[in-house]
């Protein structure tokens, strides 16, 4: 904090700042109010301007060693006194220790007769005396405009106020002047024209039946400042202004990884789970197991011996614990050991800013390693979407700066576009898990996939998300012609595949047998043919022998015939010879 202030002081060297100590206000004014000059805080009745001024004084006296003077022109109301007491600021003690001087200036018109020229030197004397008595560096003039109702000569009053503010500047005190908002003017008497260095407007309005206090820096001469309207809250710790974005985007980034509590999910997230200090969003339609996943993560956190803070906005802690015990997640021992803390409240119980403040406080007190918000979407009922976004942004900034892992659950309405309800916060999310119903074969089953996960090689596959007796399991899904198969369709597919494999094996066997018998048949055929060949060869041999025998016989008979006819050439015709095969 101190370092941040120093940095801003360097950045905006032009003007010296006087830190208010009010959370958030110093951020949007880059360090505080202009030192040594008057600043005007104006707004309607009950907008918190007196409290802001008082807190400026008290924090100056207690935190910055700058004693203060509080000059009130109105009766100190009981409510304010009670407020201040509950802030833990003991005004009486500060007065006793000479850190604070208070003076109540009362002007009763009916008691006063004006008889000629006068000035407000008496007021100067009183303020001066108060400043000197505690060596004050800060001065508050609470609703100095009350003077206008007590004194009738406005010409004198205006001249004297101008002189007063100049005099305060010369004294070198940082002054805060409060003013009631007027018609068309920032203040009823237009004193903003005398206080030109810094003007802050407070506002308290009702939007959608939700009351929101807002603060805006209208003007800050010589300094940059946030120009938006910033919501602020008043609670038992004083005022906190909620800048839409914290100015620094320089929170540390841890490379340590933590398990999600589901081994298979860790595998999907690059094998090692979430980054520590990252923000995780789990969104899904109703009944997809978001809370179970959150509880699984909570259990894993507590099992590591780290603290986990669970903000429940829909179910009571007992109900959550009973429900997740049915899937084997027993959180009761972790609650008993003080590692797990539930904080349950209705989102509509109070406004968004207060929710944020309460959460801050809880986180500061419990110092958890993991914060679970279940669900973040119901908070949207407590505020306008834009406000919710800025609130979450601020919360996440805070968590990141503390290296706290944020696990948020978000309910997506069936039928709406996937990103619709989370559009406001998706850019703030590091890891986004999506749970959805997969409807096939007359069944609804749960599917999980990683929509995005910054800084890690994550799986792009859908896993079936099964809530069993032993907790959460992630299973592969089957891709069929009709999409992914889950549940009993997946089981059926498994059986079908096993059967197909068996029958394929049988077919191979059968074919092998067939081939074998065919080979045998062919071999037998070959043997038969050979036998036939042999038989034929034998037959041919026999034929040749017969033929020769016949030739010899013929020759003998021919010679015998020739001899009988007395032929001179007994062997004119050669005998027929047959070639052997």
């Amino acid at each position, binding site marked *: 904090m101190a370092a941040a202030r120093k940095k801003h002081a360097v950045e905006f060297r032009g003007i010296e700042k006087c830190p208010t100590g009010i959370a958030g206000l110093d951020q949007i004014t880059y360090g505080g109010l202009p030192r040594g000059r008057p600043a005007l805080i104006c707004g309607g009745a009950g907008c918190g301007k007196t409290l802001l001024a008082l807190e400026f004084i008290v924090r100056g006296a207690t935190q910055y060693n700058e004693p203060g003077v509080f000059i009130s022109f109105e009766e100190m109301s009981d409510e304010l006194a009670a407020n201040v007491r509950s802030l833990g600021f003991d005004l009486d003690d500060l007065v006793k220790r000479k850190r604070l001087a208070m003076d109540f200036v009362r002007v009763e018109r009916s*008691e006063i*007769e004006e008889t*000629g*020229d*006068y000035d407000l*030197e008496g007021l100067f004397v*009183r303020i001066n005396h108060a400043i000197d008595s505690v060596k004050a560096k800060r001065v508050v003039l609470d609703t100095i405009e009350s003077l206008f109702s007590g*004194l009738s000569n406005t010409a004198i009053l205006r001249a004297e106020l101008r002189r007063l503010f100049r005099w305060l500047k010369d004294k070198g005190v940082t002054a805060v002047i409060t003013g009631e908002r007027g018609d068309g003017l920032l203040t009823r008497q237009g004193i903003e024209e005398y206080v030109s260095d810094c003007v802050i407007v407070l506002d308290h309005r009702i939007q959608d039946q939700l009351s929101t206090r807002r603060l805006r820096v209208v003007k800050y001469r010589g300094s940059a400042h946030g120009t938006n309207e910033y919501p602020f809250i008043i609670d038992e710790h004083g005022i906190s202004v909620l800048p839409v974005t914290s100015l620094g985007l320089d929170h540390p980034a841890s490379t340590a990884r933590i398990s999600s509590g589901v081994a298979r999910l860790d595998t999907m997230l690059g094998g090692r789970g979430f980054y520590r200090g990252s923000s995780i969003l789990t969104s899904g339609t109703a009944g997809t197991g978001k809370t179970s996943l959150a509880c699984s993560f909570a259990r894993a956190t507590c099992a590591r011996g780290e603290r986990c803070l669970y903000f429940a906005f829909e179910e009571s802690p007992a109900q959550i614990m009973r429900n997740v015990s049915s899937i084997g997640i027993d959180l009761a021992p972790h609650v008993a050991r003080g590692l797990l803390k539930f904080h349950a409240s209705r989102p509509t119980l109070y406004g968004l800013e207060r929710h944020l403040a309460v959460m801050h406080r809880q986180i500061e007190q419990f110092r958890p390693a993991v914060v679970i918000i279940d669900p973040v979407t119901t908070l949207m009922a407590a505020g306008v979407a834009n406000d919710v976004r800025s609130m979450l942004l601020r919360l996440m900034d805070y968590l990141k700066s503390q290296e706290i892992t944020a696990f948020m659950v978000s309910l997506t309405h069936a039928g709406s576009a996937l990103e619709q309800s989370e559009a406001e916060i998706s850019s703030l999310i590091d890891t986004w898990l999506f749970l959805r119903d997969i409807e096939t074969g007359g069944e609804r089953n749960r599917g999980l996939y990683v929509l995005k996960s910054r800084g890690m090689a994550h799986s792009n596959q859908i896993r079936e998300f099964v809530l069993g007796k032993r907790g959460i399991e992630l299973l592969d899904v089957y891709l069929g012609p009709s999409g992914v198969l889950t549940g009993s369709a997946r089981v059926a597919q498994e059986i079908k595949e096993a059967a197909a494999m068996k029958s394929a094996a049988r077919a191979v066997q059968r074919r092998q047998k067939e081939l074998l018998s065919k080979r045998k048949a062919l071999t037998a055929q070959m043997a038969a043919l050979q036998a036939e060949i042999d038989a034929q060869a034998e037959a041919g041999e026999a034929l040749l022998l017969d033929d020769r025998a016949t030739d010899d016989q013929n020759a003998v008979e021919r010679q015998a015939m020739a001899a009988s006819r007395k032929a001179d050439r007994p062997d004119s015709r050669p005998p027929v010879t047959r070639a052997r095969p």
Partner: protein
Amino acid sequence: MSPPPRKPAKPKTSEEPGGAEWNLRLYVAGRTPKSIIAFTNLKKICEEHLQGKYRIEVVDLMEHPQLAKGDQILALPTLVRRLPEPIKKIIGDLSNTERVLVGLDLRPQP
């Protein structure tokens, strides 16, 4: 702040010590022309209307700033009628004699 031509004593009491019936206190801050005019005017009115029964106390807030709180002094000069009761406050240099008399209840409201 120019030095005054005449120095008002402090606390300034009137010549008649027994006149405690009217107890008037005039708050000023230093010896400014305005405070001197106021004192002169007051003295004159008292002499005319309250002779012998008044007492004027001049309080210089430059010297006793802590006294401003008690009587809720804001504008200067301020004349406070402490006695008779109720307490009345008259601010300004008392140059409007009519209004001073009304303020002191020496004359009914016009």
